[in-house]
């Protein structure tokens, strides 16, 4: 972890590396979401407080993808591998302080939430729902599906999102049969901007992060 260009925190767990994907702070404590390796080489979803394991969120393989805080609690999202209808697949979760708050695969679909944000008392999560080999970008609000972005190419993915003025904006890509992955920004349930040249021979682009500012 870096602070103002300087590496300030580096640690391992179980004599192996820790995968760190996101962080939040309460006071001067760091809460780092990611995974550590168990003795069988599986990555287990976990929250670390500073350089110590705070919550092991599952005994099954998975990871924490994102972390947020309301100032008193730590919210995180990610997945663990579970048997759903007899098939091993990713079971998406939102955890609050180490306990499951929302099970996003409660309807039997494989899910993998990758981003989380707090807006007042609402918790927004963005990730993927997989159905019949179609991977659809999905936004959940307080554990319920808010928007799903299907694509003709069968894959869409949200890499970033923010709320502003009552709207939710999401950035990522969708698969176009001709143009490959197309970088896109959605506003609520519709495409706001398509950022790739759909006629280009170069296939593949994505929005990874975004911010807003005044014109």
């Amino acid at each position: 972890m870096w602070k103002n260009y300087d590496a300030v925190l580096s640690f391992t767990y179980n004599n192996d590396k820790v995968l760190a994907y996101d962080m939040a702070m309460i006071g001067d404590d760091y809460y780092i979401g990611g995974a550590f390796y168990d003795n069988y080489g599986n990555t287990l979803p976990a929250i670390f407080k500073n350089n110590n394991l705070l919550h092991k969120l599952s005994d099954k393989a998975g990871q924490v993808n994102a972390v947020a805080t309301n100032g008193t609690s730590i919210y995180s999202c990610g997945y663990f591998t579970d048997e759903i209808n007899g098939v091993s697949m990713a079971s998406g979760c939102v955890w609050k302080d180490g306990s499951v708050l929302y099970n996003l695969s409660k309807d039997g679909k494989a899910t993998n939430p990758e981003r989380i944000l707090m807006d007042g008392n609402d918790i927004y999560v963005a990730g993927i729902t997989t159905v019949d080999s179609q991977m659809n970008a999905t936004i959940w609000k307080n554990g319920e599906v808010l928007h799903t972005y299907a694509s003709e190419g069968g894959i869409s993915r949200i890499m970033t999102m923010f709320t502003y003025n009552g709207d939710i904006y999401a950035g990522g890509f969708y698969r176009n049969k001709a143009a490959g992955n197309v970088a896109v920004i959605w506003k609520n349930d519709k495409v706001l901007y398509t950022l790739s040249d759909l006629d280009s021979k170069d296939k593949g682009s994505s929005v990874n992060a975004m911010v807003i500012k005044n014109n």
Partner: protein
Amino acid sequence: MNLIYNLKKHLVFCFFAIPVLILFSCAKDESEGDSVFRYASTQTTSYSVSEEGDIMIFRFGSTASWTAKSDADWITFPTSGDGGTIYFKMQVKESLSDEDRVGIVTINSGNDYIVLDISQKKILDKNNIKIIAVGQIVKTTDGVKSNISALWENDDYLRAVVSGSTASMQDIKYLNGDYYIAGYVQSNSGITDYFWKNANTQTQISSSTSYCNVSRLYCNGNDLYAVG
């Protein structure tokens, strides 16, 4: 971790913020003076709040009753309280001003005081915002495909953040009027992580042999953090 340890040692107040803003204060050591306030401060500390407003909980200790006042009607807070450990809740409203603004909150008990200096950016024009996005696009040169870093403003591609290299921009954050991008550049020797300030000034934060990929940025007060 020495830096973190020293921060812990000298931090006077613990600030909590909703959703993510955490504030820090500098102050005198506990052993100095006979202040009513535990870890009393006579220093003014400045904080930045986004134009959208925020809720902050400022914890301090007091051995006597106290009062609080401000010259800013856009900050709400309790105006008095008894001694003990105080969780002083301040709510900064969304900015309706077309100018940046500063408000001062003063907490008094006898001759002792704590000063909080809170600045807030001017209102965003809700009908006239732009989205700055980063990511990557694929380019084919001489038959070889590579990832090129990309910077967009709304639906306009502006340029590559890093020209001539295989690179991917992972996150972008605004902090005190500047935007910072974190990402990595791939070369024959490995992957190297960087920050870019305003998509220009480049600062290397890892070596190509560290096997580290920066993934996310996080702002806390006036500090920029990255994890990977």
